[in-house]
């Protein structure tokens, strides 16, 4: 695949999130589901930001994962605006546990747990969300989170597929 075609596809995923407007009026359940995902994505964003500041993640990997989380947050906020939510609500991330940042391996395990919970939340939302145009772009974010898990397992020294 050429770089330009890939960029077009990736750009399309982000644009789909921004433009997705279901034919029906905004459904509270859809908004609530997206806000739940937004809370989780902001928590990941905060975790990577903190880890970078404390040296708890290798800088290149941390920069990449943080940039991805910011894209995910931006996409979810745009999707929520498309559903009629002007000011997307998502609670402030909780204070991060200090022990999680004591070493790069410890942080990898901590972030792996957060990513896993987030991927499972996407799976649940994708099974029930009625805003059909959002399914594919949300799925592309979930798939990115699944790849983050592989990157973090490598840092943690685990099997890449999570096989015990």
């Amino acid at each position: 695949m050429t770089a330009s075609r890939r960029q077009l596809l990736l750009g399309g995923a982000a644009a789909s999130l921004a433009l997705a407007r279901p034919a029906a009026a905004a459904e509270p359940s859809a908004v609530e589901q997206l806000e739940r995902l937004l809370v989780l994505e902001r928590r990941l964003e905060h975790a990577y930001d903190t880890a970078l500041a404390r040296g708890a993640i290798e800088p290149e990997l941390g920069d990449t994962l943080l940039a991805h989380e910011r894209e995910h947050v931006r996409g979810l906020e745009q999707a929520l605006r498309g559903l009629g939510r002007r000011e997307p609500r998502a609670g402030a991330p909780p204070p991060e546990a200090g022990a999680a940042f004591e070493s790069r391996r410890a942080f990898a395990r901590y972030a792996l747990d957060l990513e896993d919970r987030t991927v499972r939340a996407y799976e649940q939302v994708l099974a029930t969300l009625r805003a059909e145009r959002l399914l594919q772009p949300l799925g592309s974010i979930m798939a990115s989170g699944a790849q983050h898990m592989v990157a973090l397992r490598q840092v943690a020294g685990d099997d890449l597929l999570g096989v015990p």
Partner: protein
Amino acid sequence: MAAVTLASCGGGDPPPSDRPQAGSGAGLLNSIVALENAGIAAWAAIGEALSGEGRRYARAIREREIEHAERLGELVRGLGGTPPTRRSAAEYASLFPRMRGESDALHFAGDLEERLVRAYLDALRSLPHSDQRRAAAEIAAEEAEDLAVVHLLAGGPAAPQPFVTGTL
């Protein structure tokens, strides 16, 4: 008893059928089972071209593809359908690119996993039932993981993009 009576009289119910109804999702699920069946054969061939960790992961990923095909096959059977059976390795082999070494094998593996990710993400919009969509989402996440492992085996970053769309 009432249901038995209605059925014996015709009762307005559709006639018994051994085929799933149109729009049930069975057709789409079967098309993905066929793709997974090809994937199972492909990962066997890819594993033969790899060594060490690469071969070990090829085997593990092939096992996951078998589980995916079985899970989707169960959904198809639950709809009254019959999932496609796997063809012989020789039949699939003629469809695969020639692999001259590990680089070719990983390139093929990447293309295969991109296609599988895309198939599941596309299916999310078309599958009518939540259990079907749940299965598609869970398997899509695993295919994305498999793709990340291929990236690492090829010497790249596991997660290069913020949106993993797969390719056709």
